[in-house]
């Protein structure tokens, strides 16, 4: 047991530098994937296939979660608001919390777990089985052919998924609130419509989910591309994708909320 201050310090430095380096590498990686021209023809087909893998396959989990979250929000909101006699505000509560916060954030978290981890594993496996190298040897840039369509599919899918999540959640809320708990339908929807602003609430929520889409997909494809090409490396990369993107989503959500709604 030696007390090695200098060694620890050097280790810390290495650690920090290593992380800064990987941020830089992932930035260059994203830049190359997006901003260089692709030479092959069937770009559209590749994008559609990835939209299917990333978007359509995430649809079920997003819809079901949205429904339940909306229903729970209505139930919880009702039980509190009813004691103030203002159960008519349940619609407002459900819609605002979904549109501003829960929609983008929960969709992004589900997306990271469902599509992000799948992307990382898929790309990592392609690396481990030398598919990326062989693509390069054939003369196709894997950044263009493999990474770019996946990235764009993620960026496009996320806001759409969040919109669907929101709508299903609100419908779930109205099912519980109006049909089950008996809130007057008019006050449910009118209260909602008066408090929700399309640009400030729905629009900002969509901006959030667009940002989350970029960040989560970026992390997922980079972790896959950067994975150590062994089974252990891939499983670690998949875990990292979920952990990093969840943290990034929650952290960014705070920053975005502060910027968007902080002045109100």
């Amino acid at each position, binding site marked *: 047991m030696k007390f090695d201050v200098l060694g620890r310090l050097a280790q810390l430095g290495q650690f920090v530098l290593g992380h800064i380096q990987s941020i830089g590498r992932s930035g260059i990686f994203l830049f190359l994937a997006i901003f260089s021209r692709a030479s092959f023809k069937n770009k559209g087909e590749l994008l559609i296939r990835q939209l299917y893998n990333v978007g359509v396959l995430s649809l079920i989990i997003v819809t079901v979660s949205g429904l339940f979250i909306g229903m729970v929000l209505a139930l919880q909101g009702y039980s509190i608001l009813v004691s103030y006699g203002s159960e008519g505000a349940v619609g407002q509560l459900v819609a605002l919390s979904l549109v501003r916060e829960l929609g983008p954030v929960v969709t992004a978290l589900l997306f990271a777990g469902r599509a992000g981890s799948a992307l990382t594993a898929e790309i990592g496996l392609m690396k481990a089985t030398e598919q990326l190298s062989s693509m390069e040897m054939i003369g196709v840039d894997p950044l263009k052919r493999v990474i770019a369509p996946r990235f764009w599919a993620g960026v496009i899918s996320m806001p759409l998924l969040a919109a669907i999540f929101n709508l299903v959640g609100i419908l779930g809320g109205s099912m519980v609130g109006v049909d089950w708990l008996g809130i007057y339908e008019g006050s449910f929807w009118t209260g909602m419509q*008066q408090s929700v602003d399309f640009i400030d609430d729905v629009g900002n929520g969509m901006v959030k989910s667009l940002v989350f889409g970029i960040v989560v997909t970026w992390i997922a494809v980079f972790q896959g591309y950067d994975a150590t090409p062994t089974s252990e490396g891939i499983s670690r990369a998949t875990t990292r994708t979920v952990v990093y993107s969840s943290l990034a989503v929650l952290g960014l959500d705070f920053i975005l909320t502060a910027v968007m709604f902080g002045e109100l």
Partner: protein
Amino acid sequence: MRMRTVEISVGAFMLAGMLALVAMAVKVSGLTTSGSGETYELTAYFDNTGSLKPRAKISMAGVTIGKIKRVELDKDSYMAKVVMGIDSKVDNIPIDSTAAIVTAGLLGEQFISISIGGDDIYLQNGERFEDTQSALILEELIGKFLLGSVGKDN
């Protein structure tokens, strides 16, 4: 053949996403074609706006006719300047109308209520309410009551 099902489901997914967005615009945020677009601006100066916030509603006879755009301090008069966006359809607010900051219920949010005056001339875009009524601050009210000054003022 397999590509076809993929394409169809992707198309359906994109369509569902767009529709959800449209539904949120119409059903959730109550965005209608005439509703939010055209407004004209009126201003009012208050001694105290209390907790009045941008986007609070402006009502006339209980009906919402607009939203507050900005609340800012007028440096010269030390008063609060409130800029309102009024629905263009409501273009006949008499020039001697009163803008009052009222509270919805005891603890509810504050909004501006407009009481109609009797003049034939109507307020135009950019003009201001001459007659205003500041927010009721509960603490001040209680303070005054305790000092027995209520009623002596007027």
